[in-house]
């Protein structure tokens, strides 16, 4: 201990400092790498902080105040805004409308997109197969507001295409957007039309990664049609299906533009008739920018955020048990 261990030349004496200095250098290197890494993501991180996370946190903050953009002082009111919300029937109505909308749009869009993707995949080698894919995707690249205006004409009870089709089929005419019963389903039809192309393309991408030999093995095993689809294809594309459902849920829970445009737009009256199309995001918009109750709208936004988070988490929990990742 006194001398031997440190005397130059013994293996132990030389080896340990070497290891230590090597570790130190590694540490320095790691630190340098970390700094470079953060440096590289800093620009986008800043943009996110200033324009995304910052406002989001600020939104939560002002939901605890009685906030007035014209007054110099705002008073802290605690959970008052949330209590007001809970006692406001229209808020509950908007949640119900949103739920109704999401629960119909998401499954219909997902199933339709999957069906279209399967059809388009079968048709990929025939003439016009590629064109069909483009045509299915086309609605998704059109601006929501512009096509929504066109669809208000389609849904016109007297001169619209929708009722014309029903007439040809000898079915009863509908009031579409003018009817409290059919207004939200009309919006759903538009949304499915506008978004199904995106999900179809996602499913097509998923289907194209299916291992060909596994499908052939299923064929040799005697599994055809529905059995092969249910037992082999569906499990193998489950990650895509999960992604589609997740994406569709999150977007439909926040649908705004088409509802606003289809049900009244800038001329007022959006969300009608009789609040039948007032979903949560429309109500948030109206509360904030029509009635200028910013703190109440913030509280609503926070509730909507928590709802989306909860739904997403539930979906994730279900997916962990049902989705198969290769």
């Amino acid at each position, binding site marked *: 201990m006194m001398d031997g261990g440190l005397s130059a030349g013994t293996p132990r004496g030389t080896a340990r400092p070497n290891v230590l200095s090597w570790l130190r250098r590694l540490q320095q290197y790691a630190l340098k790498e970390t700094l470079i890494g953060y440096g590289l993501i800093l620009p986008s991180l800043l943009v996110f902080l200033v324009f995304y996370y910052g406002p989001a946190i600020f939104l939560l903050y002002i939901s605890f105040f009685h906030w007035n953009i014209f007054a110099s002082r705002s008073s802290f009111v605690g959970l008052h805004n949330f209590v007001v919300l809970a006692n406001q029937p229209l808020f509950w109505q908007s949640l119900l409308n949103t739920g109704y909308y999401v629960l119909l749009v998401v499954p219909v869009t997902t199933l339709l997109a999957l069906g279209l993707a399967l059809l388009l995949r079968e048709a990929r080698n025939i003439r016009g197969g590629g064109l069909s894919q483009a045509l299915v995707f086309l609605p998704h690249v059109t601006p929501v507001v512009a096509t929504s205006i066109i669809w208000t004409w389609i849904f016109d009870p007297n001169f619209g295409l929708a009722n014309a089709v029903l007439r040809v089929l000898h079915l009863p005419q509908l009031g579409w957007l003018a009817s409290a019963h059919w207004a939200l389903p009309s919006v759903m039809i538009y949304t499915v039309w506008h978004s199904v192309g995106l999900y179809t393309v996602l499913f097509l991408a998923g289907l194209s990664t299916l291992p060909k030999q596994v499908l*052939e*093995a299923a*064929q*040799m*095993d*005697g*599994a055809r049609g529905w059995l092969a689809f249910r037992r*082999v294809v569906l499990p*193998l594309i489950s990650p895509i299906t999960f992604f589609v459902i997740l994406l569709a849920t999150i977007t439909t829970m926040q649908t705004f533009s088409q509802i606003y445009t289809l049900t009244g737009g800038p001329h007022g009256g959006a969300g009608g008739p009789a609040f039948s199309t007032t979903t949560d995001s429309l109500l948030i918009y109206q509360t904030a920018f029509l009635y200028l109750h910013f703190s109440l709208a913030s509280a609503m936004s926070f509730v909507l955020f928590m709802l989306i988070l909860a739904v997403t988490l539930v979906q994730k929990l279900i997916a962990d048990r049902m989705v*198969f990742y290769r």
Partner: protein
Amino acid sequence: MGSITLRTITKKFGQRQVLHDINMTVQDGEFVVVVGPSGCGKSTLLRIVAGLESPSSGDLEFDGRVVTRVPPHERNIGMVFQNYALYPHMSVFDNLAFGMTARRTSRDVIQQRISEVAALLEIGSLLKSKPGALSGGQRQRVAVGRALVRSPYAFLMDEPLSNLDALLRERMRVELRRLHDQVRIPTLYVTHDQTEAMTMADRIVVMRDGRILQAGTPEEVYSQPNSVFVAQFLGSPPMNLVRVARRPDACVVLEGSEGIAAAVPDWIRRSPSSAWWLGFRPERIERSHNGSSGLDMTASIRTIETLGARYHVHANWGGFPITWVTQDVSGLMPGSPVSLTVSWDHIHWFDRNSEQRVTESADFSFPLEAGGVR
């Protein structure tokens, strides 16, 4: 169980013809290996037998019954794919059971068949695992098990060992062959690996460019290759080939840089062709002793590779590279000359125009003429 017969099968993909008039039979209980370079159409052939492709013309028969238009699931074929193609989301048990479930086999029978096959392939402990958790060799066994468990009419294997490492491949070769000897299901096995073909087959079918070049037992195809391609394709290291030609003065010479004249059998001098490939297997070369009765050559050694039990001596004879496999390299050194000989029994002649084997039509007698004149 029974036989598989292909009658004048052709296959075109658009303008490209990948199979030309294929005629072949896999007899009951036979293990037939189709071997050829990639792109020779061997996999297409297999897929036609499986029913995954339909032939452009020709007929496929199982036990005399024409099945050309029968869909794959009704052919009752067990197929092992190159990448195993196991169902990745199912347990090994479900992978094995899937084919029988699809055919609505009763649970008891499924259970019984799987335990039989699992015992045979020693995969009993893996039944609950998913394919992702298995090693390459284990997946291989499961893939074989899945094909076997339905008691198929025939086995089709598409390069089943090509994804395994060398050591495992060697072991699985033996195991697959042993399995075949136990179950005796007619098997059509496709590979580009000549070693697999030689070691596993009852009969080898050599294919190239969509045509069958030669079919026969491994010994036949190896010792009597009917074309230059077959001669080169089978055997490792491949057969030595040397270009020889008959000069106007009837002297047969090597067309190498040195123009060495070779002493050749008389029938070769009289043969209608005048340019040949002269071939001999590396392991048929011997050190020359006085009075040898074969093709004599003086080669200069370039390198000597040590493989442990034997050596690969790479040498140069008259400007042609030749390989000699030997167990004794005493006294040999790179750069030094060595006198070698190959018995005439082991010399192969191929016409250089047709690339086909040339044989002496009558019995093999070699009236030797003294050549070796420069």
